[in-house]
């Protein structure tokens, strides 16, 4: 049978070891091989030794020449978009105890209204049968400022899912300041399995970029909370994603931060790490620190790849599989404290509906506009090999750009990790080699 390399393969060499890393975007698989006769890219299918060919085929890096993989890409896209899970992102509080330097939010609102809590419960009671499972992302503001509401909703959702034999799980994006031992234990009981906590480098940088509203430092309290969880919680069912927003200041101190987290949490695989530039999501505060925004993540990934650190980077690996933003899936709704419904928390200027009397009143045209979106009108998209799996849905905010006339392709937000795929693969190979298949 005539064979070819998958069009979704991405290749990069690790210079000194002459190891070739492969990543297949369709199958989300990573592999490595010692090239021997494969020293030059692009690879030629004729130069692959027979023994290696079998493994490349088994893992989808090589496919029959006769197939059009775009069809599989389309199919995967459809499966992801047409999710049968109910996913709520719930803003339990639109207030915050932090005054982050780069935050876009002015926190004019308070905690979730009692009527919205009841509407969410009623909706779940009446509609859970349409879905195979339920997943909630607790979000804010700072969601733990309204802990009682979060607890009330969790108890109700778990009860509803238990009675109807649906799976239930949750995650939380919190600044970590209020995440003491008792709160953590209770959240774990409420099936909150993923915790996304931002630490912007060492105390020196973190306390400047993420202070309390009154200007007080937050680093030590968050770290104390995390140490307590590390030392006293035995469960292996959760993971804590330590996310670092990179500015020029944080980048300067990145070595110190990595040494710190290596020392504190490096041996605990429940902790994992993400790095992201500070984005301009709007608002006034970002203007004061515009000079500290970074242009590229290359230096961050290079630092990670070159040092002696050995950290669990499964969160970064997870980002690779996100050719489509999780908020782009159907049945995925963000609900704010007033019951307004959005596609994602970053799109609050673009409501698609309202939660009223236990019903989701969705503007069908607005929702359909997004779900049916095809980015074919964009020249850059048409020629992209990832088009069939992405279709412009790597970020829901792209919707705003598509709405503009004329559309501006330069504004199109492609998968961020894809832009640094060579760097990310090198980091993952160094830190999480077990995730790579030996080919």
């Amino acid at each position, binding site marked *: 049978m005539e064979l070819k390399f998958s069009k979704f393969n991405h290749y990069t060499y690790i210079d000194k070891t002459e190891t070739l890393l492969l990543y297949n975007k369709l199958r989300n698989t990573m592999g490595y091989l010692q090239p021997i006769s494969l020293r030059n890219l692009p690879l030629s299918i004729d130069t692959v030794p027979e023994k290696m060919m079998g493994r490349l085929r088994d893992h989808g890096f090589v496919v029959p020449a006769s197939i059009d993989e775009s069809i599989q890409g389309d199919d995967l896209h459809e499966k992801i978009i047409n999710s049968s899970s109910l996913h709520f992102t719930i803003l339990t509080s639109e207030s915050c105890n932090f005054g982050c330097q780069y935050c876009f939010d002015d926190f004019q609102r308070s905690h979730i209204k009692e009527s919205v809590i009841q509407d969410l419960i009623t909706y779940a009671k009446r509609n*859970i049968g349409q879905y195979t499972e339920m997943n909630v992302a607790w979000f804010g503001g700072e969601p733990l400022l309204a802990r009682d509401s979060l607890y009330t909703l969790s108890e109700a959702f778990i009860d509803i899912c238990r009675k109807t*034999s649906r799976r239930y799980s949750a995650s939380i994006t919190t600044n970590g300041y209020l995440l003491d031992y008792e709160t953590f234990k209770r959240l774990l009981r409420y099936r909150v399995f993923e915790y996304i906590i931002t630490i912007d480098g060492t105390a020196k940088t973190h306390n400047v970029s993420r202070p309390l509203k009154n200007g007080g430092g937050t680093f030590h309290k968050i770290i104390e909370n995390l140490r307590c969880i590390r030392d006293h919680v035995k469960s292996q069912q959760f993971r804590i994603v330590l996310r670092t927003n990179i500015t020029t200041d944080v980048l300067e101190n990145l070595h110190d931060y990595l040494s710190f987290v290596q020392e504190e949490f490096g041996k605990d695989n429940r902790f994992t790490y993400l790095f992201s530039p500070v984005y301009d999501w709007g608002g006034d505060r970002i203007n004061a620190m515009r000079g500290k925004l970074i242009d590229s993540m290359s230096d961050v990934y290079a630092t990670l790849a070159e040092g002696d650190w050995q950290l669990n980077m499964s969160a970064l690996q997870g980002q690779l599989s996100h050719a489509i933003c999780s908020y782009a899936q159907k049945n995925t709704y963000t609900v704010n404290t007033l019951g307004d419904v959005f596609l994602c928390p970053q799109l609050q200027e673009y409501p698609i509906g309202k939660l009223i009397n236990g019903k989701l009143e969705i503007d069908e045209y607005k929702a359909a506009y997004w779900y049916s979106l095809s980015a074919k009108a964009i020249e850059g998209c048409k020629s992209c090999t990832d088009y069939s799996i992405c279709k412009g849905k790597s970020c829901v905010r792209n919707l705003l750009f598509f709405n503009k006339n004329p559309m501006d392709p330069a504004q199109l937000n492609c998968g961020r990790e894809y832009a640094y795929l060579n760097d990310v693969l090198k980091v993952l190979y160094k830190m999480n080699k077990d995730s790579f298949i030996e080919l």
Partner: protein
Amino acid sequence: MEDTRKKVIECFNSLGFVVDDDDTVDILDYLDNSITYISFIVEVESTFDIEIPDEYLLQGRMRNIGNVCDVVEMLKKE
């Protein structure tokens, strides 16, 4: 009767609805289309091994859990 109530509520659960044990709740808020309504009737019939006559459905005799239990109890005695 208590056992009947419990089983009727479980019929809702098995169809993916969670109904409060409260007779002020209109079950048509849950069974808001003919398919789910008929599915519920079939579930009740199968659970209690009874056959609910069509006229009970047409007359709107079953608007809350208490109504459903009354019908079930009556048919079980026949």
